């Protein structure tokens, strides 16, 4: 894609490896995007065929909108995603503050627990939570999904926010405290605004992870809790269909807008501020 025609800047004598590298990069981008493009193109096909082009139509988008269960699943995923993100972001930010500002016994353990939570295979987390909820007789449903999502998002938020904190200049905080601000005031007025980009990045990561999670949700879902990934999975199990293509297109385009738009806004603010 972009790599092939964008043209990197060459300096000096062209050497063969560079050209090979360029072609290779072009192929990798093709590999990354061709399948997505195929999905998008055939979402506009006029027949049910997802492999042979027969003409343009938007009927599958109509079918998608009329299918109330997809819309419900989408709403549910949004609800779960936003709730889990809000909780995980608060907890994760607190944790990051504790880990970067305090020295205490057991810190190494806390650290490893945070990392362990990010590297533990999803299937292990999923079945262990299922077993736990069953043992604790907590009925499976939206609540258990949110609990599970928060549990795996906290660590990611912590790591992202902590990276931001470690790169931060402490002198402003110290100045605020010297001027008589209490820790809570210092945090709200000084620290939080400074680490906010990190917090938002963490929140965005948490939201994506939650919105996209299939494996863990699969094990802890219960009554009235078919999230979008669960719905997609059961749709795929019913065979290939252009309606899934249409749904993929909607999901992918929204993601691109979210990323590109988010990046733009952040970049513009940066421009204004400086």
């Amino acid at each position: 894609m972009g790599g092939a025609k964008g043209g990197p800047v060459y300096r000096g004598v062209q050497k063969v490896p560079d050209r090979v590298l360029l072609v290779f990069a072009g192929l990798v981008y093709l590999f990354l995007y061709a399948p997505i493009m195929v999905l998008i193109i055939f979402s506009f096909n006029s027949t049910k065929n997802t492999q042979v082009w027969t003409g343009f139509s938007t009927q599958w988008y109509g079918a998608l909108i009329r299918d109330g269960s997809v819309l419900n699943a989408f709403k549910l995923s949004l609800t779960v995603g936003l709730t889990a993100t809000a909780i995980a972001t608060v907890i994760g930010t607190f944790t990051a503050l504790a880990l970067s500002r305090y020295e205490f016994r057991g810190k190494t353990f806390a650290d490893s627990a945070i990392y362990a939570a990010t590297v533990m295979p999803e299937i292990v987390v999923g079945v262990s939570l299922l077993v736990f909820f069953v043992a604790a007789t907590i009925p499976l449903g939206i609540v258990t999904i949110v609990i599970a999502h928060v549990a795996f998002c906290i660590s990611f938020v912590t790591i992202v926010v902590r990276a931001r904190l470690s790169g931060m200049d402490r002198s402003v905080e110290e100045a605020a405290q010297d001027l008589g601000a209490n820790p809570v005031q210092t945090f709200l007025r000084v620290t939080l605004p400074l680490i906010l980009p990190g917090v938002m990045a963490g929140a965005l990561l948490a939201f994506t992870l939650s919105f996209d999670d299939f494996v863990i949700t699969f094990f802890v879902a219960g009554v009235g809790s078919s999230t979008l990934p669960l719905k997609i999975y059961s749709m795929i199990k019913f065979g290939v269909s252009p309606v899934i293509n249409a749904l993929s297109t909607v999901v992918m385009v929204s993601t691109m807008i979210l990323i590109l738009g988010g990046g733009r806004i952040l970049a513009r603010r940066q421009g204004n501020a400086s």
Partner: protein
Amino acid sequence: MAFRRRISRGDFLRTMGAGVVAGSTLSVLACQPNTTAQNSGGGGSGPEEKELNLYNWSDYVAKSTLPDFQKQTGIKVTQDFFSSNEELLAKLQAGGTGYDVIVPSDYMVSVMIKSDILEQLDMSKIPNFKNVGANYKGLGYDPDNQYSVPYQWGTTGILYNKKRLGTLEPSWDPMWDPDNKGKIGMLNDERETPGAALYKLGYSVNATEKEQLEEAEAELIKQKPLLRGYFDSTQNRPSVINGDLLLGHVFSGDAFLALSSNEDLDYLIPEPAATRWTDNMAIPKGAEHPDNAHKFINYILGAKTGATLSNYTYYNTPNEAALPMIDDALKNLPGYELEPSVFDRLQIIEDVGAATREYSTLFTSVKSS
């Protein structure tokens, strides 16, 4: 991450963050009626809320079934889906998951009865039970229908491409025929697929003798190189329609759906035996709306509802009062109305107790061979 760019003040983002928190709180509140955490009353006194949680197989009610029920009774039905009996059981064992009506198949009903997770039905609230045909009540898994009433029934057989293969004799052999290599799809089901091998060998689908199971395993290992894979019935159907498969191991409803749109296909119920299954409605222990559940079950067993249901799902109805209203197009499909000689060779999958795990191991060993 690309977002870790520096900004000096985050007014915009702060607003956004507050919005997220507020929005999510509101939406959680809005969703409360869906969750089950509230009152744990469970069938106590007083009228129930006008709600019902149904846990069903995918695409297993007619488009009008639930809206019509709501129109008649004011009860709103929330539906979730499972894809195997075992998944249903696993979720139910979580205890009082909030479902009011579930739809387990025959052998799973007996597992659930033994596991003591089903509520006894109050037949006085299900007058329409009289509509159920004699062949579909009092079956081995629930001899007195104390816990379950039939929902739909069907067979498990072979959907195949008649145009390419010609009309086949009713037998399991085509599924083992090297000429069809790469064009056969079996079910990803640890009872049905070992069951097919057992039928082929002339054994019972509920065999527990070690030798018979070993023979079945050997048959399946022999078959595996010929297969495209192990799939759900709903996946085999489109594959046979579009020609990726010549033969698919399917449930009859999927076969009839395919036959009605494609004249090149045919459905056969193999000799010497094949599966007849019944899906049933039951109420899990701890259901919060048992009255509504009885109303729903009675509604489904109504003549007209039963006919609408089967005309949509393409499965057979156990509801004899509904039979006259079944579409003729459906009745004329091969294998929909069964000759007594065919019906008699069908077997019902039963719970095999401790041997369940033998089946599980057997199928894993086949899949991983």
